[in-house]
């Protein structure tokens, strides 16, 4: 796969939209890793992938590989072509068949030094609500135990473009990058480890008001 259509798309289309219209605020960008890594991100919106792609340095864009649901991004050959070439998506089966190597393509990508973007919630769900992480992330990390996991917490994307809406409405969007985490040796503990890190990142952001609390 040639990376340049993807890089051009991200630089010329995605970045200007994310930085000017969305106006993403990034905290601790310096914590983003240089080599192969798994960026673990909470998921509320299609904007999430574009937001993450806009905070990694441009030199790393060619290596950026968001992991997305096969049933969504590959629902027809045209979609698959666009997803793979323009976004660099690695499709993942949400309902794998028995005996299928679910993370094969992800592991290959990590071994090639690529930067994986994973949404362990497995779905966008309700706007600005986080659901428990799927355990599958542990299986992937177990196969690449030396790859650092970097949690990235996003807020606001779910309000700007929630699931089921086609109209983009600008809201302030925030991204906080966390410290890299290492695999502790137990794959069952990974999801929990990441959730704790996410909670901590969320707490560094200022609270948002709602009518009942003020």
């Amino acid at each position, binding site marked *: 796969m040639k990376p340049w259509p993807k890089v051009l798309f991200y630089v010329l289309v995605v970045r200007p939209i994310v930085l000017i219209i969305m*106006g993403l*605020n990034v905290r601790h960008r310096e914590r983003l890793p240089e080599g192969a890594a798994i960026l673990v991100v909470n998921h509320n919106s299609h904007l999430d992938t574009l937001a993450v792609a806009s905070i990694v340095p441009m030199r790393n864009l060619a290596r950026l590989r968001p992991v997305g649901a096969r049933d969504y991004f590959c629902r027809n050959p045209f979609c698959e072509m666009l997803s793979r070439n323009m976004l660099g998506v690695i499709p993942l089966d949400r309902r794998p068949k028995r005996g299928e190597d679910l993370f094969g393509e992800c592991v290959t990508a990590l071994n090639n030094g690529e930067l994986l973007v994973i949404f362990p919630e497995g779905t966008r769900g309700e*706007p600005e609500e986080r659901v428990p992480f799927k355990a599958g992330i542990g299986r992937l990390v177990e196969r690449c135990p030396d790859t650092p996991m970097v949690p990235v917490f996003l807020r*606001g994307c779910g*309000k700007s473009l*929630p699931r089921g*809406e086609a*109209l983009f*409405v*600008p*809201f*302030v969007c925030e991204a906080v990058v966390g410290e890299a985490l290492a695999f502790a040796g137990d794959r069952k503990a990974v999801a929990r480890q990441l959730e704790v890190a996410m909670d901590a990142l969320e707490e560094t952001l*200022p*609270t*948002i*008001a*709602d*009518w009942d*609390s*003020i």
Partner: protein
Amino acid sequence: MTDGVKWVVGGILAILVIASITIRLLPHKADSESYIELKRRVQSWWVMVFIFVGALVIDRRLSVVVFAFISFLALKEYVSAIPTRRVDRRALFWAYLSIPVQYYWAGTGYYGMFIIFIPVYLFLLIPLRLVLAGETKGFLRAAGTLHWGLMVTVFSLSHGAFLLSLKDGPALLLYLVVLTQSNDVAQFISGKSFGKRKIVPRVSPNKTWGGFIGGVIITSCLAMALAPLLTPLTLGQSAIAGVIIAVGGFFGDLTVSAVKRDLGIKDMGATIPGHGGVMDRVDSLTYTAPLFFHLIYYLHF
């Protein structure tokens, strides 16, 4: 660009250079929190002056676009800070769309539409869109907060852009913005120096009679000094302009402070390092822009 504008721009740059040098020479611990904050604040001033003056010097229309973009950022900060419902999305979208339209009236100098578009048409359109969305719970809150936000962030600020459509518009806008921002600084400094009695401690503990009166005196003097360079105002009129900007700026600042207090937040955003959000920087301008505009429009146009 008139000679007056050149002199004032030169003066602003000189003040920034002096501020930057003073900070370097100041005895300090290089990594202390307050020093870094001060340095950030001055750096941000450089960026803001560069954008504002740059646009003003290059092209009148570019300045209108910059103002529209400031309104966009301020409105975005506002609707992100207040609680909104998911059913408000369409109405919010219309609110955003009103920005290019309002600034089109401002940029082309179409006074009739400029002055009624948001107070009348958007005032009717926003509740209409909310009604069509069909959710009555929280309707009044949504309609009220949305229109208030539009008036503050778009309608008020666009008066600054409308100045550009008047004769010697860039000079008038420069006069308004320089006086508003220097009034913020003057009130802050005189408040620190001899501010004791608080005016409204529950809204803002930093606002004192000392700071307020010092601000009015300094801003009036500056208004009289700059008026011959930038405006057609007489000496008496410029003194009035100075008082209006000082008092207006004071209440603009307080109003946004009250909103922040109400929402339980410290800043409206984090767009401008050392200053907070865009809304925190233009809070005074939301009062001074319409007040100064109508003064000069009544007296000279």
